[in-house]
């Protein structure tokens, strides 16, 4: 069967089971947009290429399947650089297809030419520049294989226009042959046995759980391990929902804005059982002061993460789900099986004391101007159906969302962790809703973030994707304002945005959304209930929140986690 390169590309995506492409056409990718008309694959036309990338990420974060985005060459390719970098940091599987100028024009500074593979080399797991249409099926198969195996991540395929038009003999490869890509998935048995013994001996252990547990689908195995050993669990920003917040062993989020018991349990721990986490600086604080007495068991599918930041006493390369399952077995067998688990009761009771003394807290009396953002998110969480999905942008609202939303399920939290990409929430929530149309999808967003990518609500309206946006409007770039208040003598430099410029209600309405503005606490619940009942179009609720509200607890940048600041609701004391 003779096909054009463009037809072969779309057919290859169909062979991979792709159900949706987020994209925007243009000159160099034009040939590929023609066979889309005849394909069962749904195409969602975005308003900015960055939106296509973040939608693909949101889709992947809730489905654990690779998101697919397709854009043209040059400026479109550079517009999708941010999502690629974001997906690379958060290990999100994504396949991006970019158009490229014809092979004969490459290197001549042709119209809309950019060195896309060169630009994206360090923010993709791998990228390909196709030079012959016959390569297309093989490269697409390789691209999906690389994006989803080992540590997941983004890949990019750059397709010159003449290659899209070139005829080729259709085939589909039986298998992928990449001699340089053979991820280790099975943990080394001796290391796992040693880890089991170390766990049995530990008196103050913590399960330090990262986003890898979600990517590996290891939540169920983790629950078994935690309940079997009775070891408390902290879930990082990327791992919220990997272990249910409602479980008595869950301590919540550690790190710069983590809660006291999660941060302090790690600090006082004698063993960090690290599962798919990478000792990010936002978790460790000042590294030399981080968990000084803890030994480290570190499980990760990426060998380069082991001992990169913190020395691992027992490094285990492998798929975290497979390793946890093997570890559960190893706890009952051999030498470890004969050992009695050290008594964790004193440790647990110390943690319970911290939880009682220093729970997450804010001023519920509502002093100050405007709504308390924490109250808005608590109310949102309690009124929204169990298992709903929450997306978030980056900044104060992201931290409040992580702190005050109840996370009980994996793949239900869509946020930008490693790169901290403002504007992530709106497009990512749209991608999430496309991936899980059966779920209610809310996005919590800030006014700064919203202004970066709000135009994708036009996409959502046009495509009938009924996401719901809780816009926490504090008229500031709030997190920067907080740092200027705390660390720059309240000298506010370029952080004021205005509460009513733009008029968010009018703007949302102009984009085809139902829009509501909420200013009083008693209006919060009715507005959320109204939004939950709307299922035919996007909804935006603008909550006017207190611009003076800060995120607490907080470990100041560069400080040790022992120096955690609890905030004014404890009278400024610890």
């Amino acid at each position: 069967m003779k096909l054009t390169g463009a037809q072969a590309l779309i057919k290859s995506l169909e062979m991979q089971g792709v159900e949706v492409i987020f994209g925007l056409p243009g000159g160099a990718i034009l040939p590929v947009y023609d066979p889309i008309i005849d394909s069962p694959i749904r195409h969602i036309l975005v308003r900015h290429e960055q939106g296509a990338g973040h939608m693909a990420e949101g889709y992947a974060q809730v489905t654990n399947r690779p998101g697919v985005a397709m854009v043209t060459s040059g400026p479109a390719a550079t517009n999708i650089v941010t999502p690629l970098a974001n997906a690379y940091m958060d290990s999100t599987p994504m396949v991006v297809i970019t158009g490229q100028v014809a092979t004969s024009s490459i290197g001549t500074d042709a119209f809309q030419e950019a060195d896309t593979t060169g630009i994206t080399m360090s923010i993709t797991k791998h990228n390909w520049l196709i030079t012959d249409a016959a390569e297309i099926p093989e490269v697409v198969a390789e691209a999906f294989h690389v994006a989803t195996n080992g540590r997941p991540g983004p890949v990019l395929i750059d397709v010159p226009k003449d290659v899209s038009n070139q005829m080729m003999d259709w085939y589909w490869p039986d298998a992928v042959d990449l001699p340089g890509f053979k991820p280790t998935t099975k943990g080394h048995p001796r290391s796992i046995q040693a880890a089991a013994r170390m766990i049995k001996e530990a008196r103050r252990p913590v399960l330090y759980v990262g986003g890898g547990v979600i990517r590996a689908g290891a939540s169920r195995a983790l629950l078994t391990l935690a309940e079997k050993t009775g070891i408390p669990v902290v879930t990082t920003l990327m791992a919220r929902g990997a272990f249910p917040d409602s479980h008595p062993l869950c301590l919540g989020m550690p790190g710069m804005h983590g809660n006291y018991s999660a941060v302090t349990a790690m600090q006082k721990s004698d063993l960090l059982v690290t599962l798919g986490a990478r000792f990010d600086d936002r978790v460790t604080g000042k590294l030399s002061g981080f968990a000084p007495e803890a030994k480290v068991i570190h499980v990760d599918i990426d060998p380069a993460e082991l001992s990169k930041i913190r020395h691992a006493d027992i490094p285990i390369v492998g798929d975290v789900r497979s390793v946890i399952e093997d570890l559960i077995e190893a706890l009952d067998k051999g030498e470890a099986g004969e050992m009695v688990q050290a008594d964790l009761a004193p440790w647990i009771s110390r943690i319970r004391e911290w939880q009682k003394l220093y729970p997450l807290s804010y001023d519920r009396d509502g002093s100050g101007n405007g709504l308390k953002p924490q109250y808005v998110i608590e109310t949102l969480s309690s009124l929204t159906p169990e298992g709903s999905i929450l997306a978030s942008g980056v900044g104060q609202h992201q931290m409040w969302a992580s702190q005050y939303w109840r996370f009980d399920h994996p793949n239900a939290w869509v946020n930008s962790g490693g790169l901290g990409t403002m504007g992530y929430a709106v497009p990512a929530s749209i991608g999430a809703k496309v991936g899980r149309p059966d779920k209610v999808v809310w996005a919590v967003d800030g006014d700064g973030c919203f202004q970066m990518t709000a135009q994708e609500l036009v996409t959502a309206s046009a495509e009938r994707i009924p996401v719901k946006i809780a816009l926490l409007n504090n008229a500031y770039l709030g997190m920067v304002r907080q740092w200027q208040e705390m660390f720059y003598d309240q000298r506010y430099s370029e952080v004021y945005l205005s509460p009513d410029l733009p008029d968010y209600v009018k703007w949302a309405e102009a984009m085809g959304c139902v829009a509501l503005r909420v200013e009083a606490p008693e209006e919060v619940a009715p507005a959320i209930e109204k939004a939950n009942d709307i299922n035919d179009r996007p909804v935006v609720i603008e909550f006017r929140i207190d611009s003076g509200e800060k995120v607490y607890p907080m470990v100041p940048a560069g400080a040790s986690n022992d120096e955690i600041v609890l905030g004014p609701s404890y009278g400024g004391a610890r």
Partner: protein
Amino acid sequence: MTNIGPSIVPMSLPGGRSSRGVSLHVLSVLVENRAGVLARVAQLFSRRGYNIYSLAVAPTDDERFSRLTVVVDLESAPLEQITKQLHKLINVIKITEIDPVDAVEQELLLAVVAADVSSRGQILELVGIFGAKVLDVGLERLTLALADTPEKLDDFTELIKVFGLIEVQRSGRVALAKLNRGGGRGGISRGKAS
């Protein structure tokens, strides 16, 4: 305890390099012979802040593969982290860490040296002692070539410098592990399954 592989003690090389306190190590990296592979390796080093001391690239006898001989500066990052990051590149097939003690190494030096009638004889004497070659002869200059170990190249450079060095070009070293005669441990290969 570990399943990452043994650690290697970094060593300093003699000559001008050790006096700068730089510790160097040789990695022999087998890569797929594809467009852009060198750029991927170079960008990885740049992006992660690793220093390349020298780099030599050439195809192997099997045209599907090329071999990169990279001399890395271990002051910038631990060797283990460098090799693990390199392994993440899809086009990297195999990395052999070559401890210079257990390696055969060669490097090529081209040097243009001032050589008037009075000094020419002494220079040619050194050429003979080191087994170098005269590639080109000018009225007051000679272009010399020497292929030997990096240390020998250092010594040779040191000695001919006295006559006035006009230009020096070195290729960067290439290295292979010593053949196993029962004694040396040779290079330590790290396949993808670490």
